[in-house]
């Protein structure tokens, strides 16, 4: 028997209002682990045969909130959100920090499966085996902070009333959507606390399409029993001690990147990636710290790193804005990418994205895209409903962001995300706008450029990833290397934070897995078999696509055109991506991953991985690509 799992899922069908538990097979858990791996398996089994026809924002889609065996054990707890992505039409394992996953496991579930769609707004309340679908009419339209406040109060009162004997109840843990998700904005997040988000994938829109405002869970049991508690304790200590000795993120969070990635590695988006260099002293992490941080270390379950800080603007035009650091991605995408270099303005826009339930990366990307169109005169002030969308004008971008969340005017178009907005607007304007869309397969590129060659993403990182522009799941060779996509699949399937692994022996996470589950798993076995199988399934569903668009790997396994333009300024001026080298690297990657020359998984590899049904389904794709 496999340990470390609850062994069951909670399924809520919002069309019928019925809930039930589903037993999970040991064999499935052994092969797919949890989180991203398990999501891929569930989605393939349930939707694979009709994948192309499933509308990610329709009732057929399935929303998954999954934990993994390492959630709560490996320091830094997370939850993996998945389903068919309204951004890529594939599967994205999108993780969010917080205690939700721990509560879920303590309530006796490895995850929640949400099917169907409700007629009216609801939320799901879970206290161990007591599960209830509750009315959320009073929560619909509420921003992040008001949603958290209202639900925390309401759910504690429920617990207090129903389980009075226990004493005073702590708050349950929440995952929820903001107005962005309610309005099915494709850049909407599934959020936790005030500021945490599962952003990549756009699952806030999926939750909104099901009219599910939130899930609140309180679990009173222990984490599922581990196989070797003595070892688990030892590994926890190892991870902690390693983090305590690594001051970078403990001290500054990833926000140290706001200056460094601009000034030094020259790989930060500046004005929709027209440049990747800035040398703005005002954007130093010390300025963020001294001007905005009201808490130096902010953490989630068991985390020794505390890369998050709490920031608040205390004076001036943006007084009252509260968010985390902001972390590097938010600093970049809601900062230099919009021509903004002032900490308070960046905190304001990041807090606004939180409040509206939007992904700062994806929304910052589409707003940068719009601003460049305005700069070039392609979008007029009239097109923008009167907004003078000049680089650096935080208030203008704030106004636009609200319109996106509410799908008002121009916001309705931009709410489709950069790729779809570029297609639609290009048609209207009669110009090919895709060269200005900095994305890969519908997913905006993370804030790490490849042109200077000084950042951590390889030239094929986004182009060959099964999660497109997701910088936390970039492709690279060797396939079993420390930062490869297969290793990221492990983090997202074990479901813990990948920020507590730096500097540790690569095998530690597998030893940790064995100590928790009792199942032997080597890095080699993971990379040769289990992770490779998950990768093929994700690749297959990505290639099958959806009713509105499909990807042709010959065209779309590429970098955004902007990444082939020379860097216009900075220490790496003139550098760009070498297409020939990129093509040859891509070819090697295809071969290593078991994909044919067109990027489709071969029959050989699929048979070897016992994915015969996938092989059959992909036949028509292979044929289309030959024709």
């Amino acid at each position, binding site marked *: 028997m496999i340990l470390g799992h609850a062994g069951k899922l909670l399924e809520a069908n919002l069309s019928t209002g019925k809930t039930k538990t589903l037993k999970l097979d040991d064999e499935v858990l052994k092969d797919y682990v949890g989180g991203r791996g398990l999501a891929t398996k569930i989605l393939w089994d349930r939707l694979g045969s009709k994948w192309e026809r499933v509308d990610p924002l329709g009732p057929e889609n399935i929303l998954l909130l999954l934990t993994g065996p390492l959630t709560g054990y490996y320091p830094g707890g997370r939850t993996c959100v998945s389903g068919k992505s309204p951004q890529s039409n594939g599967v994205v394992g999108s993780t969010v920090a917080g205690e939700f996953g721990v509560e879920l496991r303590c309530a006796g579930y490895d995850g929640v499966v949400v099917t169907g769609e409700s007629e009216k707004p609801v939320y799901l309340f879970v206290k161990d085996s007591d599960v209830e679908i509750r009315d959320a009419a009073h929560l619909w339209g509420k921003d992040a902070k008001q949603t958290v406040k209202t639900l925390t109060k309401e759910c504690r009162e429920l617990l207090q009333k129903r389980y009075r004997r226990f004493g005073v109840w702590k708050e349950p843990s929440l995952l929820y959507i903001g107005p962005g998700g309610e309005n099915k904005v494709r850049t909407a997040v599934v959020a936790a606390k005030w500021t945490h988000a599962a952003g990549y994938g756009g699952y806030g829109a999926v939750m909104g399409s099901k009219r599910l405002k939130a899930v609140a869970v309180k679990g009173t049991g*222990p984490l599922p029993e581990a196989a070797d508690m003595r070892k688990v304790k030892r590994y926890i200590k190892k991870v902690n001690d390693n983090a305590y000795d690594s001051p970078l993120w403990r001290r500054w969070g990833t926000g140290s990147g706001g200056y460094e990635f601009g000034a030094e590695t020259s790989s930060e988006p500046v004005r929709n990636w027209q440049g990747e260099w800035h040398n703005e002293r005002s954007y130093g992490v010390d300025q963020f710290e001294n001007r905005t941080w009201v808490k130096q270390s902010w953490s989630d379950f068991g985390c020794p790193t505390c890369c998050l800080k709490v920031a608040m603007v205390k004076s001036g035009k943006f007084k009252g804005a509260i968010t985390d650091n902001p972390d590097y991605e938010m600093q970049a995408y809601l900062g230099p990418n919009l021509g903004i270099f002032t900490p308070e303005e960046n905190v304001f826009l990041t807090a606004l994205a939180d409040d509206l339930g939007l992904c700062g990366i994806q929304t910052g990307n589409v707003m940068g895209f719009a601003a460049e169109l305005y700069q070039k005169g392609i979008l007029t002030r009239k097109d923008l409903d009167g907004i003078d969308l000049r680089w650096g004008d935080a208030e203008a971008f704030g106004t636009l962001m609200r319109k996106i969340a509410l799908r008002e005017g121009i916001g309705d178009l931009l709410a489709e995300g950069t790729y779809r907005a570029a297609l639609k607007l290009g048609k209207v304007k009669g110009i090919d706008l895709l060269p200005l869309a900095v994305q890969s397969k519908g997913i905006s590129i993370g804030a790490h450029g490849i042109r200077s060659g000084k950042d951590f993403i390889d030239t094929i990182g986004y182009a060959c990833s099964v999660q497109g522009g997701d910088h936390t799941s970039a492709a690279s060779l060797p396939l079993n290397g420390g930062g490869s996509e297969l290793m990221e699949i492990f983090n997202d399937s074990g479901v813990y934070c990948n920020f507590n692994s730096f500097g540790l022996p690569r095998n530690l996470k597998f030893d940790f897995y064995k100590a928790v589950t009792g199942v032997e798993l080597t890095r080699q076995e993971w990379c040769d078999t289990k992770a490779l199988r998950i990768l093929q399934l994700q690749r297959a569903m990505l290639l099958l696509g959806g009713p509105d668009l499909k990807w042709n790997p010959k065209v779309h396994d590429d970098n955004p055109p902007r990444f082939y333009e020379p860097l216009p300024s900075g220490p790496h001026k003139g550098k760009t991506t070498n297409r020939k080298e990129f093509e040859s690297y891509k070819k090697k990657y295809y071969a290593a991953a078991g994909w044919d020359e067109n990027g489709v998984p071969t029959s050989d590899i699929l048979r070897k991985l016992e994915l015969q049904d996938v092989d059959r389904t992909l036949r028509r794709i292979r044929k289309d690509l030959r024709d």
Partner: protein
Amino acid sequence: MLATKKEPIWIARELIRCSGCRKCEIACSLFHENRIWPEASRIRVFMLVPGAEFPHFCAQCKDYPCVKSCPVKALSISKKTGAVLVNNERCTACGNCINACPGRIPHMHPTENYIVICDLCGGDPQCVKVCREGGWNVLETVSRGDRPYKLYARKPEETARDLALKMYGEQAEEYL
């Protein structure tokens, strides 16, 4: 004054420094239950307002109202540490001690029929250890003096309010 092992101790607390990492809950439940079990932990981190997390645990009031309230004498005071000790067999889970506590700190064990209260781990509190290892230093073991520790036995709603106002100013009213 730092504590030596031979005298009663107290856990001094600087709540505003809490990162919300909940390592204290993990350490406490591992020590007492050999499981990671947040709701069985004798120290519990509340997050009634995000960013204003804090640990909530026994303050060992000078007059020990919980001990006095127990109808079956299941609670006693450790001579060595000054902690409140629960006799699990004797406890009937009546909940009198919860109501007697000015901070409503004791809570039921989630699966067993007895109350759980911080026992100071017999003099070497595990929560303090992990908190200091991580450098957060919210908690510190000091020798127990003749002081009104009862001041620290406050309801979570009260503490959350104070910390949220301290962090966010009057704007915190919107989140409470």
